[in-house]
């Protein structure tokens, strides 16, 4: 792996609750290459949520080194971290996390607004992203007016609209019935085929099976 898009070296994340120190991640080494489809799999409490937060630049490691797309993350301040998230990460959440009382189109366009893209271009790109996910006729609908599968597709469109370096999906099928879940997995397959780097975090081995590579995490450590 000459040019890893994600590179973690001895990364630890320890929560300091004041009385006790809780290690959530311990000495994690991980490299993910451009265009790879990786599943991080582990039971609840294994540290995979912490892993997602670190990989997604929502949180910083307490020790170790994390380089995302050539940028060392641990040296950045909050604003630079936000800019890096905006540029390089597309999040897909289990509970979709769409903005309430906001149309599908506005939801998808919002990440571009935070990049300072003009309104005209935002709308055009958001429309294109929604149409690509088969939601061309649902753009004016608010999240409460969409089914779970549709909401998750809006979430994927929102993650993709900024053309991020990696797509970071946290239990994307967790709230969906099997048909909608399979649809979402199918979308991930297509994206992967188109060359996108995808990191999928799940507890479900069946879901993880769709990825090229599975990274097992247990008690905050990567299991061989």
């Amino acid at each position, binding site marked *: 792996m000459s040019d890893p898009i994600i590179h973690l070296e001895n990364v630890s994340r320890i929560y300091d609750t004041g009385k006790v120190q809780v290690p959530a991640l311990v000495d994690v080494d991980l490299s993910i290459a451009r265009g790879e489809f990786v599943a991080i799999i582990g039971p609840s409490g294994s540290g995979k949520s912490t892993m997602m937060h670190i990989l997604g630049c*929502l949180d910083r490691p307490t020790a170790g080194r994390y380089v995302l797309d050539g940028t060392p993350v641990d040296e950045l301040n909050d604003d630079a971290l936000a800019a890096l*998230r*905006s*540029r390089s990460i597309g999040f897909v959440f289990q509970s979709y996390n769409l*903005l309430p009382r906001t149309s599908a189109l506005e939801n998808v366009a*919002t*990440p571009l*607004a*935070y990049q300072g893209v003009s309104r005209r271009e935002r709308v055009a790109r958001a429309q294109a992203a929604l149409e690509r996910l088969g939601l061309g006729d649902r753009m004016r609908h608010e999240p409460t007016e969409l089914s779970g599968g549709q909401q998750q597709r809006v979430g994927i469109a929102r993650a993709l609209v900024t053309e991020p370096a990696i797509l970071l999906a946290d239990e994307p099928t967790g709230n969906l019935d099997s048909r909608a879940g399979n649809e979402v997995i199918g979308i991930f397959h297509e994206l992967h085929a188109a060359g996108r780097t995808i990191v999928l975090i799940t507890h479900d081995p069946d879901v993880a099976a769709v990825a090229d590579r599975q990274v097992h995490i247990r008690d905050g450590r990567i299991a061989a």
Partner: protein
Amino acid sequence: MKLTDLFGLALSRLGTGKLRTGLTMLGVIIGVASVVALVSIGEGATSGINSRLQGLGTNLLSVTPGATTTGATRGAFGSATTLTIEDATALTTQPDIAGVAPELSSSHLIVAGSLNETTTVIGTTPAYPLVFAYDMWQGSFLTQASVDHGLRVAVLGNTTATNLGLGASSVGSTVYISGLPFDVVGIMQPKGGTGFVSPDDEVLIPVTTARNLFVGTDSVRAIGVSVTSSRQMTAATAEITTALDQRHGIGASGTPDFTITSQTQLLSTVGSITTLLTVLLAGIASISLLVGGIGIMNIMLVSVRERTHEIGIRKAIGARGRDVLLQFLFEALMISVSGGLIGIVIGLAATAVIALFAGWAFAFNPITVVVSVVFSLIIGVIFGVWPASQAARLDPVVALSYE
């Protein structure tokens, strides 16, 4: 995020939860409206007083008879009949006095053609327009000759002329005062002014004519004195006192049987009290504005708490702290400024209604509006910035997992 986008975001947010936004805004509306109304009303009252001040005549001193004292019983103020036409004549020679106008008044029925009116008839001298600041509209005022010879000539106040159907061409016509014919020699400009007694509803005739035909005595109701300049008011007062004491035989230790009042001073005192009251009331109104601002802060804190999860989502998809801060700050500003604008409109409307009933000119002061807008902006910033910075500082991981 661009400022225009943040602005649009705040604007669209106001549309949701209209009742809450409206109630929060109401606090600002009431505060701004009361400040604007009270300041404007204060200004209206002050300008009313100022116009009366100017209407009174320049450097006016009023000499009125004192109260009679019979044994231990003191009569009503001005009940003495000690001031005479001769007293007035004597004052004209004093160095600091520019004009002296005695007022020998009585009430009479005035008839002109088929119209009639009962009004005050004042016997006076040619100094009257100078002393009481009247201008002539048609014809001329009473001459010294008409006073010397006790002629039956009359000058009409503007309202009186209108009531009697007399206009620009009526100089030279005849009016009947209690049945006696008088030649109209002039009609005065309206003075306007405020108060219950119009200064334009009166008939002026030579003082001698009034004494001979209507009053029958030399006692005048008052003597108006115009002082040469405002700096000489004290000197003129002393001159009047000395002259009248001497004429009435009152010694240095005696009680004078007349009173000298400077209405100019009286009214400027009233004016400064009005200003003080305005400031005081505006200060009290500002407290309600402060309460309105605290209302904004309260609702913004609740809003930040309620939308913690949304803030987490926004941060995950690329919002910087600054973006979140400005989003919430703009929401607070939107509430305070729109509340301020509505408050200004309501305040001015209230002022207009009150001015209508009080008979003031409606004083619209653009400075009040500008200050109110700036003030509500400041309120929005002061009370919005803390909740907004709370939102901006939220940890994205914590905010995302907040339900």
